[in-house]
């Protein structure tokens, strides 16, 4: 055993998603073997990130500046606003490189039993932003789950009355997948949303 400092790092690392105590030990040993190349730069980066990274005042994503680099970019299409549940979803859409509008991160979805109400999400701020940005199209990119769609319908109700086109992501068969392996829900939805060829 290397003592309490070692154990403390293992304990902290093993709290991370996907990392158990065995993996944490291997990570710590790997870092100790590469102190200069790995451990010290990582420690420095973590400290800098903890200080610098914050939520964007406009879209609520994480960035080192507020407004974030997406909200500040004048090249983005400001008539498009895409609503996502969390930062991970925003990153997923950004990875595609095909969306050039702005985002709004809700920070969760409405949940009856967990007591998450509209006031707990960034919905009031969304309405303010829609008016300020004079958004022409609102893309609701929330998960196709009961709670995700409940939130989507709630937002649609809130936006009703404004001259804004509201769209949602398509649902159906993922590219490259075999029908035989799809769950029933996806197949039913794909059949319902079939399109002419």
């Amino acid at each position, binding site marked *: 055993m290397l003592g309490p400092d070692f154990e403390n790092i293992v304990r902290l690392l093993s709290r991370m*998603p*996907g990392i158990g105590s065995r993996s944490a030990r291997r990570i710590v040993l790997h870092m100790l073997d590469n102190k200069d190349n790995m451990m010290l730069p990582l420690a420095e980066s973590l400290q800098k990130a903890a200080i610098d990274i914050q939520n964007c005042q406009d879209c609520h994503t994480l960035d080192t500046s507020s407004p974030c680099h997406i909200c500040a970019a004048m090249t983005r299409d400001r008539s498009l606003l895409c609503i996502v549940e969390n930062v991970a979803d925003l990153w997923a859409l950004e990875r595609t490189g095909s969306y050039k509008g702005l985002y709004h991160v809700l920070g969760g979805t*409405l949940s*009856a*039993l967990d*007591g998450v*109400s509209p006031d707990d999400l960034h919905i009031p701020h969304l309405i303010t932003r829609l008016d300020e940005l004079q958004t022409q199209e609102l893309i609701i990119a929330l998960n*196709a*789950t*009961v*709670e995700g*769609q*409940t939130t989507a*319908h*709630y937002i*649609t*109700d809130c936006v009703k009355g404004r001259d804004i086109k509201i769209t949602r992501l398509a649902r159906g068969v993922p590219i490259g997948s075999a029908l035989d392996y799809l*769950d*029933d*829900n*996806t197949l*039913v*939805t794909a059949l319902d949303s079939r399109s002419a060829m």
Partner: protein
Amino acid sequence: MDQWRDQGIIINVKPHGEHGGVVSLLTAEHGRHAGFAHGVQSSKNRSQYEVGTIVDADWHSKQTDSLGTYKLNPEKSYAVYALDDPRKLLALQSMSALLHLTLPEREDAAGIYDASLAFLESLKTEIWAPTYIYWEIGLLQALGFGIDVSECAATGTQEDLVYISPKTARAVSRDAGEPYKDRLLPLPQFLKGGGDFDDKAIADGLQLSGYFLQQRVFGMTSNLNLPDVRHRLYASFSLETSDQT
């Protein structure tokens, strides 16, 4: 080792650990029963364990009183029939929340299980809203607070029953209720075994069952309010009705 196998409806999934969750089921023979299930919150599996999904459940535990572990096999999902309809979604969530919050754990609830299955099946049809109200009245009955619409509480007549007394939960005829009509609850005609329904009738039905759920279940046993989703379900019908008038 205690073990059983049963069919159940998922009424709540509470994340526990990285991918697992404590799943609450309404089962056919074991009532409302919770257990830990591996993998139900993973991004790959989460969609298969939505509320309203029928599962084949295999529960085992070393001790009868402990939480135990489920092996779940999803059989049929009903969420897909509700995703595009905000009212159906609210009703589905309201059903799950009411079952989770009101039913005692591990006590037989076969009647309300069958009624819940009937409501889930109705999500494919146009009569899901009255079916939901019948379901809530069935839930009240299962909890010991039935509503009697067979005859007038004051005169005994079976004709022209248009009110429900908030005190006795019994029907009142138009003539007998006239002097007190501001204090009585409207009785939608479809609850007397037929007839058409519109948004106003559904709103009246939700007001009726909601009143007794609040007064006799939530208010008395737990001093809580009806879940927010249930309020929004009522509002979705009552606001549309008031917009039309």
